[in-house]
């Protein structure tokens, strides 16, 4: 099995384009327990956003896969719709450069074809994709 080490990932965007599947098996995951839950979220909004609403010009995600739910002032709960996510990593880049880094890319093992040699791993600029034992199929950021 193959998995991305979120510590090494640089969000170059190749996961989106290089996977043998037409929509990449790489998806964005969210570690709820790492998140700061702010209103102005670097993974949710584009840089220099003017209004904090869900209008298309403000959103970071090109497919609208990230939704959020108001919990209590000033906190939000973020959820990712994996069927919409294409693994481009824009939100991850935004989150790790402005936020706590609670968004991260992982290979969704149910979608992954488990190629003998992962095609993305060959072009991964940081060598973040490595073989992992089946029992440790995900490298999650929760419980940190």
């Amino acid at each position, binding site marked *: *099995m193959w998995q991305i080490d979120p510590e*090494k990932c*640089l969000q*170059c965007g*190749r996961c989106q384009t290089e996977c*043998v*599947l*037409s929509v990449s098996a790489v998806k964005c*995951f*969210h570690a*709820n*327990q*790492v*998140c*700061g*839950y*702010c209103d102005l979220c670097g993974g949710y909004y584009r840089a220099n956003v003017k209004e904090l609403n869900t209008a298309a010009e403000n959103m970071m995600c090109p497919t609208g896969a990230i939704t959020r739910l108001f*919990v*209590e002032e000033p*906190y939000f*709960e973020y*959820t990712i719709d994996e069927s919409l996510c294409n693994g481009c990593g824009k939100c991850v880049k935004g989150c*790790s450069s*402005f*936020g*706590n*880094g609670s968004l991260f890319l*992982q290979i*969704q*093992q*149910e979608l992954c*074809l*488990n*190629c*003998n*040699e992962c*095609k993305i791993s*060959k072009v991964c*600029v*940081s*060598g973040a994709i490595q*073989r992992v034992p*089946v029992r440790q*199929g*995900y490298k*999650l950021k929760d419980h940190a």
Partner: protein
Amino acid sequence: MLNLLGVARFPKPDFTSGYQYPEIVHGMPWESFWVWLDVVLLVGMMSLVAWAVHRRPSRKIIFSVSIVSVLYFGFFRTGCVCSIGSIQNVVLALVDNNYRLPFVVLLFFLLPLLFAIFFGRVFCAGVCPMGALQELVNVRNFRISRAVASALSFFPWIYLGFAILYAATRSQFIICRFDPFIPIFRLSGDVGMIVFGVSLLVISIFIGRPFCRFLCPYGAILSVVSSVATKRVEVTKKSCINCMLCHNACPVDAIREPYANKVGESRMVGVRRVLLYIMLLPLLTIGGGWLLSSQSDTLSIAHRDVYLYTLLQNNYEDKNMPTEVEAFYEMGRSIDELETSVMSVRESFNRWAWFVGALMGFVLGWKLIRLSVKRTRKTYEIEPSACVACGKCFNYCPQNISVKNE
């Protein structure tokens, strides 16, 4: 004073409304189950084919196994891991102590070889989804010149050589990367590979199994093993009546016609040629090794570090800097560390290029010797190394038909 250098820029929220973190479970496929089912099916299907070939000459069973294999191993399991690709895993496991070879992959590598020792290439017959797919689309065979085919059958060895070279140097799995049928099984993939796969399939409508005969590196290993098989594939259990129908039916041209050895050449010339080739064998082996090792630096660019290093030799404007180079700087890797890595990669490339080149040279010499030996045949015989046990000939043999009629 100076602390908190880390990712946690913002404190975790302090929920007052009794909010609970949502439980997120990331699904895992039932991989261990499917993998073992693969092994069970592999063994079962190979046993079935072996039985169909040796005990009860029947094409129908082999053909149905082919359909099952294409549907299960091909379209359902999307081809990975296959025996052909497992060569690379085995090689990698031999050189890299950090890579733990999964037992299942080892089984995929060994079981077809084991069956080949006893029953011939029953794996190729219909268990291998690549072979089965070509078998299913094959409709009408047009023969190609045996001399050309014989020369082309050297290609799998070159392919195998490079596969070993790139796997042993931890560069790439080229068999997986250039597999023509996997994109078809997945219904997605590289455009070039899809076109290649489709054209191979179109060719295999009219020429039997072009991939198996002229490309497949695992087939090359199997052909060696199956030539010493204890039980050879036979067209019929009865005596041959030299009707040549089986010869016409064979899609891989493995059935040789009877041949009275009456060469116009004097015996001495023939013997001398064989002796010459035997003396040439070590020369070819060393020559092959030298030739490939002289190219090893060029070949080593397939390794990620060497590639990065060559990229770093150029100066880039800010805009068109390759992502690899950007990442190199971003990760703060030092060029010295990369340089040492490049040196060791090049060194291992050189070593393995010697080995692989020598292997290719040896195979070449061996092939030439084989082609210089004369044999006499009284009846139609199956060449075991070329026969893929597809069973097409069974139904063509009049002797078999008479059995059925009885």
